[in-house]
Protein backbone atom coordinates (compact mmCIF):
# COMPACT_ATOMS: atom_id res chain seq x y z
CA UNK A 1 0.00 0.00 0.00
CA UNK A 2 2.79 2.39 -0.88
CA UNK A 3 3.78 2.95 2.73
CA UNK A 4 0.26 3.84 3.83
CA UNK A 5 0.37 4.07 7.62
CA UNK A 6 -2.39 4.80 10.12
CA UNK A 7 -1.77 6.75 13.33
CA UNK A 8 -3.86 6.38 16.49
CA UNK A 9 -2.37 8.90 18.89
CA UNK A 10 -2.24 8.42 22.67
CA UNK A 11 -4.26 11.07 24.49
CA UNK A 12 -6.65 11.64 21.58
CA UNK A 13 -10.28 10.64 22.00
CA UNK A 14 -11.44 7.37 20.47
CA UNK A 15 -12.64 8.28 16.94
CA UNK A 16 -16.41 8.71 16.94
CA UNK A 17 -16.82 6.90 13.61
CA UNK A 18 -14.79 4.48 11.50
CA UNK A 19 -11.61 6.52 11.08
CA UNK A 20 -8.26 7.21 12.71
CA UNK A 21 -6.34 10.33 13.79
CA UNK A 22 -4.08 10.55 10.75
CA UNK A 23 -2.89 8.54 7.76
CA UNK A 24 0.46 8.92 6.04
CA UNK A 25 1.22 7.77 2.52
CA UNK A 26 3.04 8.92 -0.56
CA UNK A 27 4.96 11.55 1.38
CA UNK A 28 1.95 13.31 2.83
CA UNK A 29 0.19 13.10 6.20
CA UNK A 30 -3.59 13.54 6.25
CA UNK A 31 -4.83 14.69 9.67
CA UNK A 32 -8.49 14.06 10.49
CA UNK A 33 -10.69 16.96 11.50
CA UNK A 34 -9.70 17.94 15.04
CA UNK A 35 -12.12 19.33 17.60
CA UNK A 36 -11.62 20.74 21.09
CA UNK A 37 -12.13 17.57 23.09
CA UNK A 38 -10.08 15.76 25.70
CA UNK A 39 -9.22 12.07 25.63
CA UNK A 40 -12.71 11.27 26.99
CA UNK A 41 -14.27 13.27 24.13
CA UNK A 42 -15.45 15.95 26.59
CA UNK A 43 -15.62 19.41 25.06
CA UNK A 44 -12.84 21.74 26.24
CA UNK A 45 -13.26 25.52 26.28
CA UNK A 46 -17.06 25.57 26.68
CA UNK A 47 -18.49 28.41 24.56
CA UNK A 48 -15.13 30.22 24.24
CA UNK A 49 -13.97 29.82 20.64
CA UNK A 50 -10.43 30.96 21.52
CA UNK A 51 -10.10 28.34 24.26
CA UNK A 52 -11.53 25.77 21.85
CA UNK A 53 -9.05 26.79 19.15
CA UNK A 54 -6.16 26.43 21.59
CA UNK A 55 -7.25 22.88 22.39
CA UNK A 56 -7.77 22.07 18.70
CA UNK A 57 -4.23 23.14 17.79
CA UNK A 58 -2.81 21.43 20.89
CA UNK A 59 -4.46 18.19 19.74
CA UNK A 60 -3.29 18.75 16.18
CA UNK A 61 0.26 19.34 17.40
CA UNK A 62 0.16 16.03 19.25
CA UNK A 63 -1.07 14.20 16.14
CA UNK A 64 1.56 15.85 13.91
CA UNK A 65 4.34 14.97 16.37
CA UNK A 66 3.19 11.35 16.59
CA UNK A 67 3.84 11.11 12.85
CA UNK A 68 7.17 12.90 13.07
CA UNK A 69 5.83 16.20 11.75
CA UNK A 70 5.35 19.68 13.15
CA UNK A 71 3.27 22.72 12.26
CA UNK A 72 6.09 23.84 9.99
CA UNK A 73 5.35 20.81 7.76
CA UNK A 74 1.66 21.67 7.25
CA UNK A 75 0.90 22.58 3.63
CA UNK A 76 -2.88 22.90 3.81
CA UNK A 77 -5.34 23.74 6.55
CA UNK A 78 -9.13 23.62 6.36
CA UNK A 79 -11.00 25.42 9.13
CA UNK A 80 -14.70 24.92 9.79
CA UNK A 81 -16.38 27.48 12.05
CA UNK A 82 -19.99 27.50 13.21
CA UNK A 83 -19.75 31.31 13.14
CA UNK A 84 -17.51 32.82 10.47
CA UNK A 85 -17.25 35.98 12.58
CA UNK A 86 -15.03 34.01 14.98
CA UNK A 87 -12.22 34.09 12.40
CA UNK A 88 -10.40 37.16 13.84
CA UNK A 89 -10.54 35.61 17.31
CA UNK A 90 -8.95 32.38 16.13
CA UNK A 91 -6.27 34.02 14.00
CA UNK A 92 -3.87 34.90 16.86
CA UNK A 93 -3.84 31.23 17.85
CA UNK A 94 -2.92 30.31 14.28
CA UNK A 95 -0.15 32.93 14.26
CA UNK A 96 1.17 31.55 17.53
CA UNK A 97 1.32 27.92 16.45
CA UNK A 98 2.50 28.43 12.87
CA UNK A 99 4.99 31.20 13.54
CA UNK A 100 6.93 32.00 10.37
CA UNK A 101 5.21 29.18 8.46
CA UNK A 102 2.10 29.99 6.43
CA UNK A 103 0.08 27.03 5.17
CA UNK A 104 -2.41 27.22 2.35
CA UNK A 105 -5.82 27.53 3.98
CA UNK A 106 -9.56 27.43 3.46
CA UNK A 107 -12.00 28.69 6.09
CA UNK A 108 -15.76 28.27 5.87
CA UNK A 109 -18.80 28.52 8.09
CA UNK A 110 -20.85 25.38 8.52
CA UNK A 111 -24.18 24.88 10.34
CA UNK A 112 -23.04 22.19 12.76
CA UNK A 113 -20.17 20.01 13.89
CA UNK A 114 -20.46 16.47 15.24
CA UNK A 115 -19.63 17.34 18.85
CA UNK A 116 -22.44 19.43 20.40
CA UNK A 117 -21.11 22.85 21.41
CA UNK A 118 -18.02 22.62 19.22
CA UNK A 119 -17.41 25.89 17.39
CA UNK A 120 -14.30 24.98 15.44
CA UNK A 121 -12.91 21.95 13.61
CA UNK A 122 -9.61 21.96 11.74
CA UNK A 123 -8.07 19.40 9.38
CA UNK A 124 -4.62 19.47 7.85
CA UNK A 125 -2.36 17.99 5.21
CA UNK A 126 1.34 17.94 6.07
CA UNK A 127 4.51 16.84 4.30
CA UNK A 128 6.27 13.94 5.96
CA UNK A 129 9.92 14.76 6.75
CA UNK A 130 12.59 13.45 4.31
Amino acid at each position, binding site marked *: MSGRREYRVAGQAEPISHFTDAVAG*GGLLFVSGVVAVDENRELVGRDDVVAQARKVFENMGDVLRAAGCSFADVVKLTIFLTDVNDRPLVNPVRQEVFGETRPASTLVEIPALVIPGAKIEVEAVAMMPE
Partner: protein
Amino acid sequence: MPSRPVLSHAADAVRAAGYVFVAGILPADSTGALVGGDDVVAQAEHVFGGMGEILAAAGCSFVDVAKVTVFLTDVSDRAAINPIRQRVFGDARPASTLVEVSALAVPGAKIEVDCVAVLP
Protein backbone atom coordinates in the same frame (compact mmCIF):
# COMPACT_ATOMS: atom_id res chain seq x y z
CA MET B 1 -14.70 5.05 -15.39
CA PRO B 2 -18.36 4.24 -14.68
CA SER B 3 -20.96 6.61 -16.01
CA ARG B 4 -21.69 9.14 -13.33
CA PRO B 5 -23.38 12.51 -13.33
CA VAL B 6 -20.98 15.34 -13.97
CA LEU B 7 -22.70 18.44 -12.74
CA SER B 8 -19.89 20.87 -13.33
CA HIS B 9 -16.46 21.06 -14.90
CA ALA B 10 -14.97 18.05 -13.11
CA ALA B 11 -13.84 14.44 -13.51
CA ASP B 12 -14.73 11.45 -11.30
CA ALA B 13 -11.15 11.24 -10.14
CA VAL B 14 -7.67 12.39 -11.00
CA ARG B 15 -4.50 10.36 -10.58
CA ALA B 16 -1.39 12.38 -9.84
CA ALA B 17 1.81 12.18 -7.82
CA GLY B 18 1.01 8.74 -6.45
CA TYR B 19 -2.48 9.65 -5.32
CA VAL B 20 -6.03 9.38 -6.55
CA PHE B 21 -8.18 12.40 -5.81
CA VAL B 22 -11.81 11.31 -5.96
CA ALA B 23 -14.36 14.02 -6.59
CA GLY B 24 -17.28 14.46 -4.21
CA ILE B 25 -19.78 11.67 -4.88
CA LEU B 26 -23.49 12.35 -4.63
CA PRO B 27 -26.40 9.90 -4.43
CA ALA B 28 -27.38 10.35 -8.06
CA ASP B 29 -27.64 8.14 -11.15
CA SER B 30 -25.98 8.78 -14.50
CA THR B 31 -28.70 11.27 -15.43
CA GLY B 32 -28.14 13.24 -12.24
CA ALA B 33 -31.41 12.04 -10.67
CA LEU B 34 -31.46 11.49 -6.92
CA VAL B 35 -31.04 7.88 -5.76
CA GLY B 36 -32.28 6.62 -2.40
CA GLY B 37 -35.21 8.97 -1.93
CA ASP B 38 -35.06 10.59 1.49
CA ASP B 39 -33.28 7.61 3.06
CA VAL B 40 -29.77 8.67 4.06
CA VAL B 41 -28.65 5.05 4.42
CA ALA B 42 -29.78 4.17 0.89
CA GLN B 43 -28.13 7.36 -0.34
CA ALA B 44 -24.90 6.48 1.46
CA GLU B 45 -24.94 2.94 0.01
CA HIS B 46 -25.06 4.46 -3.47
CA VAL B 47 -22.32 6.95 -2.66
CA PHE B 48 -19.90 4.38 -1.27
CA GLY B 49 -20.81 1.95 -4.07
CA GLY B 50 -19.80 4.62 -6.55
CA MET B 51 -16.64 5.35 -4.61
CA GLY B 52 -15.67 1.69 -4.79
CA GLU B 53 -16.18 1.67 -8.57
CA ILE B 54 -14.15 4.83 -9.04
CA LEU B 55 -11.32 3.61 -6.83
CA ALA B 56 -11.24 0.30 -8.72
CA ALA B 57 -11.18 2.12 -12.06
CA ALA B 58 -8.21 4.12 -10.79
CA GLY B 59 -6.36 0.98 -9.71
CA CYS B 60 -6.94 0.97 -5.98
CA SER B 61 -9.56 0.17 -3.34
CA PHE B 62 -10.97 1.33 -0.02
CA VAL B 63 -7.93 0.00 1.89
CA ASP B 64 -5.78 2.55 0.02
CA VAL B 65 -7.87 5.56 1.09
CA ALA B 66 -5.89 7.98 3.26
CA LYS B 67 -8.52 10.68 3.80
CA VAL B 68 -12.26 10.86 3.48
CA THR B 69 -14.45 13.94 3.83
CA VAL B 70 -18.13 13.44 4.60
CA PHE B 71 -20.64 16.24 4.08
CA LEU B 72 -24.11 15.73 5.60
CA THR B 73 -27.11 18.04 5.48
CA ASP B 74 -27.98 16.73 8.97
CA VAL B 75 -25.01 15.95 11.17
CA SER B 76 -27.17 13.64 13.29
CA ASP B 77 -27.23 11.20 10.33
CA ARG B 78 -23.60 10.36 11.16
CA ALA B 79 -24.53 7.34 13.30
CA ALA B 80 -26.85 5.95 10.61
CA ILE B 81 -24.15 5.83 7.95
CA ASN B 82 -21.28 4.64 10.14
CA PRO B 83 -22.08 0.92 9.66
CA ILE B 84 -21.59 1.40 5.91
CA ARG B 85 -18.22 3.01 6.52
CA GLN B 86 -17.25 0.12 8.81
CA ARG B 87 -18.29 -2.40 6.16
CA VAL B 88 -16.57 -0.84 3.15
CA PHE B 89 -13.33 0.11 4.90
CA GLY B 90 -13.09 -3.05 7.00
CA ASP B 91 -9.82 -3.10 8.92
CA ALA B 92 -8.59 0.07 7.22
CA ARG B 93 -9.30 3.37 8.95
CA PRO B 94 -8.77 6.50 6.89
CA ALA B 95 -8.28 9.98 8.27
CA SER B 96 -11.66 11.69 8.17
CA THR B 97 -13.51 14.94 8.54
CA LEU B 98 -17.30 15.07 8.81
CA VAL B 99 -19.26 18.31 8.81
CA GLU B 100 -22.80 19.48 8.26
CA VAL B 101 -23.48 21.65 5.23
CA SER B 102 -26.60 23.66 4.41
CA ALA B 103 -27.11 22.20 0.93
CA LEU B 104 -25.62 19.87 -1.69
CA ALA B 105 -25.64 20.20 -5.48
CA VAL B 106 -28.35 17.58 -6.11
CA PRO B 107 -31.71 18.57 -4.59
CA GLY B 108 -32.69 16.11 -1.87
CA ALA B 109 -29.16 14.77 -1.44
CA LYS B 110 -28.29 14.30 2.23
CA ILE B 111 -24.70 13.11 1.81
CA GLU B 112 -21.64 13.76 -0.32
CA VAL B 113 -18.28 12.08 0.20
CA ASP B 114 -14.90 12.69 -1.38
CA CYS B 115 -11.57 10.99 -0.71
CA VAL B 116 -7.85 10.84 -1.40
CA ALA B 117 -6.23 7.43 -1.89
CA VAL B 118 -2.59 6.42 -2.02
CA LEU B 119 -1.86 4.40 -5.16
CA PRO B 120 -0.52 0.96 -4.23
